[in-house]
């Protein structure tokens, strides 16, 4: 059966990955290709890369940066930032992007969604929507828009979008949990897959979101940056919840781990640790 997807969201500002808080504060994290490489090693399902300055600077996300980072990724890359034309999309698809993420252009030029869906297929067009309460949000003017998220999403679907990426402005970076009610409402109303983002501070929050039956994926930004093995541990915890279909196939997989209520990995017994000293693990060479 189709698994729930755990997606890492990498926000680029001035060619660096940054931590985003409330769409207004940004703290530096580091190099894009290193983030991509580590996320792959830790078993992430998919990666979204967005250049949040590109539209403001009226340019496309740096395709050389994407090409370089793509070398390290064997999971899909959805790339966005300043996409305005079919040529932009073509260039990104030839630079290692598997899907493109369109935000501002959906409002400035909705026909781009239709045209690009006809040429590239709807399965690679992701429309990203910033939500402030039930209304869409314009991150450039920092104001709510007239349309509700549902109205905008339905329009995007009619134009040929393949997925909706829903971003909660109020929950961005607060680490207190996702807006489950709004996500559930939207997930039940749409005929295409929904990815929700904003508010994850720990694995309980992800579990809660994954229990929304029709939610396809959770995108996580800040949470993965500061804890080593956060992806593997998260998957280990999710895999132990038997009602959540998740892929847990990384080499370091915490399948046999025991977690406490704080979701810290419990120490194995002394006997188990002693036996592990003499285990032989043959390196798998593909």
């Amino acid at each position, binding site marked *: 059966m189709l698994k729930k997807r755990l997606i890492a969201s990498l926000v680029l500002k001035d060619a660096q990955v940054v931590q985003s808080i409330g769409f207004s504060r940004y703290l530096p994290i580091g190099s894009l290709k290193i983030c991509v490489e580590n996320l792959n090693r830790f078993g992430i399902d998919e990666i979204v890369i967005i250049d949040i300055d590109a539209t403001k600077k009226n340019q496309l996300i740096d395709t050389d940066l994407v090409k370089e980072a793509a070398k390290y990724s064997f999971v899909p890359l959805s790339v966005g930032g300043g996409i305005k034309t079919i040529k932009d999309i073509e260039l990104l698809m030839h*630079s*290692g992007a598997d899907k493109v993420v369109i935000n501002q252009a959906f409002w400035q030029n909705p026909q781009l969604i239709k045209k690009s869906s006809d040429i590239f297929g709807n*399965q690679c067009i992701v429309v990203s929507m910033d939500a402030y309460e039930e209304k869409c949000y314009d991150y450039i003017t920092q104001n709510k828009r007239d349309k509700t998220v549902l109205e905008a999403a339905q329009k995007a679907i009619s134009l040929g979008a393949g997925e909706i990426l829903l971003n909660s402005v109020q929950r961005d970076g607060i680490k207190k949990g996702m807006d489950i009610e709004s996500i559930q409402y939207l997930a039940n109303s749409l005929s295409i897959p929904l990815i929700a983002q904003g508010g994850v501070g720990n694995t309980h929050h992800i579990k809660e979101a994954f229990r929304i039956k029709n939610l396809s994926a959770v995108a996580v930004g800040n949470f993965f940056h500061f804890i080593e093995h956060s992806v593997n541990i998260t998957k280990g915890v999710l895999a132990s919840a038997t009602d959540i279909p998740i892929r847990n196939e990384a080499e370091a997989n915490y399948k046999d781990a025991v977690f406490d209520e704080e979701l810290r990995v419990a120490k194995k017994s002394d006997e188990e640790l002693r036996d592990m000293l003499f285990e032989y693990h043959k390196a798998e060479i593909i």
Partner: protein
Amino acid sequence: MSGKKIVIIDHGVGNTHSIANALDFLGCDALLSSCHADIENAKGYILPGVGAFKIAMQNLQEQDIIDILEKNVLSRNKPILGICLGMQLLAKSSVEGGLHKGLGWIDATVQPLQTSANIRVPHVGWNNIKIVQNSKLLKNIQTDSNFYFDHSFHVVCDDKTVETSTIFYGENITASVQKANIFATQFHPEKSQTAGLKLLRNFLDIVEKSDA
């Protein structure tokens, strides 16, 4: 030795960079090309595809490479791996954006996936395959391994003997096929991490051992 062993067919609608990256990781120096000489000299082919069926077929026709591919694949039995849209192109026809003719190398048609209360289309994400027939392409891959899918249309085989694996998404969907030297996957092995890389390695081995 002149000419590259593996040619990734450049028909303008592929995520060719991703495939080239994956092959590069496996130590294979593949060539991205639609030129007759390269196709003639190659030992095996990858037919990628992320895009619309109609445009891909149009491009293949405009590039005038269908005949030479048929000569090398159907007559000289050189191995070919079709991926995603590349698998769909092998079918007789597709209804994506109107009715369009495919290459017709496998006895199948391309139909839309059905949306329903529980089923969202496109089918996006990791799904586990059920191996229904042995295939060298699936060597060392466990049944229930997850691969990445991203498609709104799927291949319906009239000749079920070519089906090598399926997935379940509301109904049974063909995940991979083999007809002699013609291999294809609906999923993206170049984007399916370890399992995908293993499958690509299997294809490289198939090309290596082929005496076509």
